[in-house]
């Protein structure tokens, strides 16, 4: 939406392959993206998962994904659903990362994984 030196963090987008009528042959940066797939839906900007840690985790603390497990300082504090795990796995293959952090909302804590 703009011009300048710094993009707004809340307005990030993945450019999709063009829907060319003529067709251009090879796939692009994405491994398997077809002309008709919206990469912004396949690899959403954020994934939020409720954590199940017994103790309160520090706000903003870094979370690690190890397979379907969400880890804080080596301890398992949450779990990706099967579909979330598939999404993250595919998007990592596409070249994106999903670093995570702890966020609190109301009485619950969540792992917020943001596409980079």
């Amino acid at each position: 939406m703009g011009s300048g030196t710094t993009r707004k963090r809340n307005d990030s987008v993945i450019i999709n392959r063009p829907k060319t009528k003529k067709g251009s042959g090879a796939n692009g940066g994405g491994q398997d993206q077809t002309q008709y797939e919206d990469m912004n839906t396949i690899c959403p900007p954020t994934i939020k998962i409720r954590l199940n840690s017994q103790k309160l985790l520090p706000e903003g603390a870094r979370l690690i994904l190890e397979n379907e497990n969400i880890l804080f300082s080596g301890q398992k504090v949450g779990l990706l659903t099967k579909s979330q795990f598939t999404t993250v796995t595919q998007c990592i293959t596409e070249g994106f990362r999903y670093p995570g952090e702890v966020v609190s909302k109301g009485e619950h804590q969540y792992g917020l994984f943001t596409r980079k």
Partner: protein
Amino acid sequence: MGFSHANDNEKTQSFFSLLCESGKFSPYIHVDEATAVKSSCQDNGRRNTITCKDKDLAGFLIEVDSLNMNTANLKGTNLLIGEYIPVIPKVFFKSPETFVSNKIVGVSISDIFVGEPLELRDGRYRVSPNLKININVLQNPVFQNKKVILMFDARDALLEHLWWKRDDIKLFDTLAKIKFFAITTPNFSLFKGECPIGHAWNIKKGLLCGVELEKRGVIVVPHVYAVHQEQLVRWCDWLKKNPTVKIIAMNCQLQRKSIDGRNIAVSALRYLLENTDVDIILNGSDKRILLQLEQFKIRLHSASSGVFKKLEIKKMMNSFIYKNWMETSRKVSVTL
């Protein structure tokens, strides 16, 4: 008049700028434009833009019929517009036509959808799944007996989605049917430090949107962004080859917020004003930009929704004060 660099570091080549191959696309990209590249063109995953190293670059270039701006020509217009164009936000659409006395007004593309086009979830914008343009938007009371310019300025999440889906949703047919007085071309982003291929691609996308709209009988005002002197040279060349384009637009909403941004905007505007005879609609500009261009005042037209936003805040404040007063009164009467 030279182009103002935001700071001296931008004149120095970075490691990434040396690896940028955008210069191969001369004359549509000048070799010097790569100097400002500040991140890797390799494996950017099409984050926000495309680069010279994109594996499907050929496909992206076919999509826009090459980076040559001169394959996208516009008739443009020579609209007679006043110094100020009020851009009416959605919240005031139901207001009576007398609410705004100006005969030429603006409306933002983000406000012509049924519902909100974007949702902010977990701090990131996403396109609403039920995106639908309200083709009756100009039937709203506030627009009666007014000429309405569509300001095609929006967040990248929305603009890129509309561009990608333009054929599926018949974007240009739909916009033409609404019968706007004129439509600016979209303000696809140009950020310093990114690959110049992405810049040139975005400039061409904007022009092609204008071509499609003109094919459908719409008056088009090309939106101009430039973050490098050579881009301005190409814009001036394009304007000379499209001499009936007498008004262009530039969105300054993001640029006005920082010194660097304002420097970029003022340098670009000054260059365009000194080297062409166009008038410029500045959307979302402010005094800090306008005061630096005082000598060109007669050719600058300020489009803004600022006054309405202040009014909205005032209305909200009044409603808040009224609600609090009501609650306090109720408590008092219960106590009594």
